[in-house]
């Protein structure tokens, strides 16, 4: 039995849209809250240094930690995108394999 290509494309789009809609909303929320947390931390550190309530011992640590926080945030953001791509692959491959199974009349 030949593959119904139009139906297959439509099924792939539905599968991909489901993953993207769900995951991109979550990534957007993570990005917004992560950036806010970074801004708040920068304010706490700046205020503490200005007021002298952050000691000489901790000052370089907190400044360097802001760099680490930023890198870890971006690393996590990229990781979340990779998870979404991985889910997209799974979803699309499932549709393709199911369509091939239906075409040959044997579940794969």
């Amino acid at each position, binding site marked *: 039995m030949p593959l119904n290509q139009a139906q297959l494309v439509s099924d792939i789009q539905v599968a991909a849209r489901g993953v993207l809609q769900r995951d991109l909303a979550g990534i957007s929320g993570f990005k917004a809250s992560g950036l806010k947390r970074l801004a708040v931390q920068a304010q706490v550190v700046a205020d503490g240094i200005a007021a002298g309530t952050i000691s000489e011992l901790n000052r370089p640590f907190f400044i360097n930690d802001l760099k680490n926080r930023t890198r870890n945030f971006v690393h*996590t953001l990229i990781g979340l995108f990779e*998870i979404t791509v*991985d889910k997209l692959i799974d979803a699309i491959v499932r549709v393709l394999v199911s369509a091939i199974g239906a075409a040959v009349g044997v579940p794969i």
Partner: protein
Amino acid sequence: MRNSGFQLRVHPTWSLVLASALALALSAGCATRLVPDYDRELATGLRAISASILGLFAGGTGGLSKGTYAKREHTYSQLIGGLQSLRLQSESRPAPDRRISEVLSVPDPDPDCDSDIPTTCSLDYMIGVLEQMRLADRKQGVSTTEVAAFRGSMEGYMHNALTYENALQR
């Protein structure tokens, strides 16, 4: 065929990501993994230690005196040991395939961390934060502002780790 609208919303970078990922998956017989496996025990451990860490900070909202450091020494050791154990657990998972990042020429976002798994790096940094706080606590005590800054830092890393691990769950 009428366009469903989905294609219109896909950024060109995403098209490249998707095309590259599909090509990788098909060429590798669908065995390519871009991400580590979800580890329920690790996720549970992260949530548990997060509560314990918040407990330490809750007891220090007014600052921590050097004179009472001895009371907290064991807590620091327990928390740092717990984080090290979770780090080992996170890193012992099979490493994700980084070829998709290579295809897209994505630079290493965190060259100071020797892991490709964000959670492992978050745990590395959390250990560093607690070690610095312990050092300051022992030497001179920790001011109210410093407690707030250490707490903000720990919460940020924990937020990253929990978000990533929760996203891995299918």
